């Protein structure tokens, strides 16, 4: 028993230092491509850290979104910048003035020690809301406490989060059309892998969506896998017909949020509060909302990667 605890402590310490080292390397590497690849590695190690901290739901989300999709977005942006000027450019103030360096170092040290002091002086045991969550889990319609919090107790958070995703996409669309892609060939390997990978991704997404009710998983993890499948299609240059890019695309993107709000409002008509599920229907309603959310999240994430409003030529 003792040996195992010691081994775990060594592993945690190593993991912690590796995280800090990778973050530092990702933030200071002169080559931006290298920096982004290190950042993706950092995200994967974060996923491992979530497992160590008993948070498998977050580990799934981090591996798919934090490491995977963020990395894809960053690499695609880097390719479009065609940046030769990727060497570390300091801000002018920092470069020229030693006083600034001094102030900055002092600020960083003060923030670090202040934060460290405040987290270390927190009381040792503080179960927070977990007792209430577990006491009421029977009425929530699902048995995975994280899904219960996301879709039932704090449904507002999830509703607003989906709005944020939609607003971000609207922001990107308002900046213009899809940037012209360089004519690059994805290569034989990707071409062969895609027919194998995409069905697998869709199947795993369906599983995660279903499993989310009682085990780690849920709409966001499943949605990000669908998004990954969409990005793979975009990478090999598959074009969807323009007739799907107008109204059908918009309906798909807003479907999850619209259904979420519709369920909330419908419940109000039956005398409940907004998003207050009756416990006999809670399980089905949550699954319905999650299924619609998965679809919308997947398509929205792929559209984020596309980087502009389809069907609109970027003015040059």
């Amino acid at each position, binding site marked *: 028993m003792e040996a195992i605890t010691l081994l775990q402590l060594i592993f945690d310490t190593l993991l912690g230092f590796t995280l800090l080292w990778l973050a530092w390397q990702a*933030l200071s590497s002169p080559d931006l491509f290298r920096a982004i690849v290190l950042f993706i590695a950092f995200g994967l190690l974060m996923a491992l850290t979530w497992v160590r901290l008993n948070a498998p739901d977050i580990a799934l*989300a981090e591996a798919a979104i934090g490491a995977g999709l963020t990395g894809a977005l960053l690499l695609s942006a880097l390719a479009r910048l065609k940046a030769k000027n990727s060497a570390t450019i300091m801000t002018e103030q920092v470069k020229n003035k030693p006083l600034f360096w001094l102030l*900055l170092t002092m600020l960083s040290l003060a923030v670090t020690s202040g934060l460290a002091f405040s*987290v270390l002086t927190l009381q040792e045991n503080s179960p927070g809301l977990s007792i209430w969550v577990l006491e009421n889990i029977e009425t929530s319609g699902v048995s995975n406490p*994280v899904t219960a919090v996301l879709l039932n107790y704090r449904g507002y958070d999830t509703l607003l989060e989906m709005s944020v995703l939609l607003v971000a996409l609207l922001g990107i669309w308002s*900046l213009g059309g899809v940037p012209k892609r360089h004519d690059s060939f994805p290569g034989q390997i990707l071409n062969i892998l895609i027919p194998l990978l995409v069905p697998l991704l869709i199947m795993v997404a369906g599983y995660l969506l279903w499993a989310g009710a009682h085990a780690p998983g849920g709409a*966001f993890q499943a949605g990000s896998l669908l998004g990954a499948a969409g990005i793979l299609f975009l990478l090999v240059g598959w074009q969807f017909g323009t007739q799907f890019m107008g109204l059908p695309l918009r309906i798909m993107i807003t479907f999850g949020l619209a259904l979420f709000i519709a369920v909330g409002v419908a419940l109000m008509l039956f005398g409940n509060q907004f998003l207050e599920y009756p416990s006999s229907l809670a399980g089905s309603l949550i699954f319905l909302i999650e299924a619609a959310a998965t679809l919308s999240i997947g398509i929205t994430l792929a559209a984020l990667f596309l980087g502009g409003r389809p069907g609109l030529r970027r003015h040059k």
Partner: protein
Amino acid sequence: MNNIYLYTLVGVGLFSLGLYALIVHAHLLRKILAINVMGSGVFLILVALANRTYGTAPDPVPHAMVITGIVVAISATALALALTLRVHTETGRVELPEESLE
């Protein structure tokens, strides 16, 4: 149970590293990386502290908040990258103009 504080301190370290990099670098892509590292630090602190439940299952509320946070972070990152690309198209630069302090 000591790994709670170990990971909390790593989270603090990540937040500070990110903050430092955010101030020092002018390149917008690096600033976006820095904000993401800061966010990871905050998530790590939240989830590590969620384990303080007398050795029982961790508090699911911070877990749900972090999942929400990860999705919000990628939305913000995608929008920031689109803005960066637009700045690059309009000005040919990848950093914002410096304001003189004098």
